């Protein structure tokens, strides 16, 4: 009668020292509280400075509450002639969405093929892919830049999109998930029913992959949105992504912190919203060990 467990609620302790072993003690609570405060403070500080004038940066003690200058800072940010902030936001939104959609499509297709289809050279191809995942990204930057210059893509948005349309990491993650989430019988019976391989992917595999795709999608979007080095190398100041645009706000002789922090806050806000909405999925994605990169 007592076997039914309600999920989400802590179980009643079984009594004795063994159960107490797992209860958070005061030291644990203090540690966690301190960590959370330290984690949140820089983000909070970003929003505080974004709502105040630049004088605040020199004030002692520093103000720890938001002020009323957000509107003026925003109009200064979007009116800044060097930074092209609006264009940066639009460019980043386009790049991040395109890369996310195509990564999801191509990674799930390839992951399905590696997990469930038999073909000659499968093992070798997989091994090659795993090896490529070990190579540091930045090694490729200079030759990739030279290639982009050769084909005339420097300064153009496709330069930050096309090379990243699918990653080995995404394929590998989808393969791992497909292997354990899609039973072979399901695919065989669809095959017997006369489904084509693509049809099996589309109507049998894809629906099962949805949770893993949500996590991969969130991570891909975040990564593309936050990418800094490659846009800095290949784009021009008059056609930046949002992170590049942040860098352009930094004046050579004078640092306008409230302006830069406003830009940083606006650039972080979309991801913060995504995190608040989907934090649970992101955490379980990391914890499931699917996202080890």
């Amino acid at each position, binding site marked *: 009668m007592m076997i039914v467990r309600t999920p989400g609620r802590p179980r009643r302790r079984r009594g004795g*020292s*063994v159960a107490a*072993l*797992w209860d*958070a*003690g005061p030291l*644990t609570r203090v*540690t*966690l509280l301190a960590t*959370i405060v*330290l*984690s*949140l403070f*820089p983000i909070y*500080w*970003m929003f505080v400075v974004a709502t105040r004038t630049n004088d605040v940066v*020199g004030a002692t003690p*520093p103000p720890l509450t938001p002020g009323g200058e957000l509107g003026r800072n925003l109009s200064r940010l979007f009116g800044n002639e060097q930074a092209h902030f609006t264009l940066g936001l639009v460019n980043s939104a386009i790049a991040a969405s395109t890369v996310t959609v195509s990564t999801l499509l191509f990674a799930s*297709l390839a992951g*399905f*093929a590696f997990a469930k*289809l038999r073909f000659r050279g499968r093992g070798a191809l997989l091994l090659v*892919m795993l090896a490529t995942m070990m*190579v*540091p990204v*930045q*090694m*490729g930057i*200079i*030759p*990739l830049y*030279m290639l982009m210059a050769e084909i005339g893509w420097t300064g153009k948005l496709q330069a930050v999109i*096309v*090379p990243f349309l*699918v990653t*080995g990491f995404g394929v590998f993650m989808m393969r791992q998930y497909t292997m354990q989430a899609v039973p072979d019988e399901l695919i065989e019976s669809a095959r017997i029913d006369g489904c*084509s*391989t*693509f049809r099996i*992917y589309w109507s049998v595999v894809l629906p099962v992959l949805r949770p893993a795709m949500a996590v991969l999608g969130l991570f891909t979007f975040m990564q593309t949105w*936050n990418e*800094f*080095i490659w846009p800095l*190398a290949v784009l021009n100041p008059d056609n930046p992504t949002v*992170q590049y645009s*942040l*860098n352009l706000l*930094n004046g050579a002789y004078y*640092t306008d*912190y409230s302006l830069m*922090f406003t830009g*940083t806050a606006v*650039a*972080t806000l979309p991801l*913060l919203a995504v*995190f608040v909405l989907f*934090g649970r999925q992101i955490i379980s994605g*990391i*914890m499931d060990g699917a996202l*080890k990169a």
Partner: protein
Amino acid sequence: MTISIGSRTGPRAAGPPGPPAPRRRARTVLARWDVKFSPYLFVSPYYLLFFLFGLFPMGYTVWVAMHDWELLGAHEFIGFENFRLVLADPQFWNSVRNTLAMFVIATVPQLLLALVLANALNQRMRARTLVRMGVLVPMITSIAAVAIVFSQLFSRDFGLVNWVLGWFGPEHLDWAARRWTSWLAISVMVDWRWTGYNALIYLAAMQSIPRDLYEAAAIDGASRARQFWTITLPMLRPTIIFTAIVSTIGGFQLFTEPLLFGNGDMAGGSLRQFQTVTMYMFENAFRRFDYGYASAVSWMLFMLILAGSLLNFAWLRRVGGGAK
């Protein structure tokens, strides 16, 4: 009469079993092709992209590195001259030293803190998901954002860090000016962003350790600290090796934090006190436009990462008691 697709009437239904109708044959051929070629079609986008934008440029770097290759002028083949020059270049070794130092200063405390944090998160508590989100939230911020905010926090005259330190001593540290302090400030940025993430990875591994082990140890009178050392740590060894290697790859490529900490200066401070290898590579490619030399630096970086990962792996296996 035109034959409609899927029509089942016809001579075949009545007649003796003979060769299949041409349409049927076409369908089996199609089905066979589908089974045979679809897998290649499905995996091809990745390999196509990788070949065009990964493998080809990588191979090209070797070629470029063996030339005197600058923005303008002829590209003269000089063999391993660039590599020889890099190995004799004090600025290169300076950047290696900075990178290694920041890697150690950032990674060691980061992984230790992550372990402590994971141990804390592994206790029973209320609002578990909320607490985990609070620990993980730095990860969503971009490196550029982190660098901008922390550079302000560490600024000499008006930084919050100096303000707090001012309670204990009068000196206002110029964090960026000195080698050690700049390393420390940059390491703090890295750790702020990644400690929570590593803690969650450790937490996941901790939760797969059977609880009976702890209960048995508790009954035998082992203290919590002792349980941590004799049960948790050994069981976590593969995960710790994994995070150490990932951190090595990431740490050796350190770039954005020091770049923005120095206001976008690729030299990493007036005395190159925090220039990393990647920054040096960038400086050669995009300031001096010496692509050949920069390519040689990038290959040296790759070697360093490879060596670092292998060393890490060997060392952690040994420290962990490496029976297997």
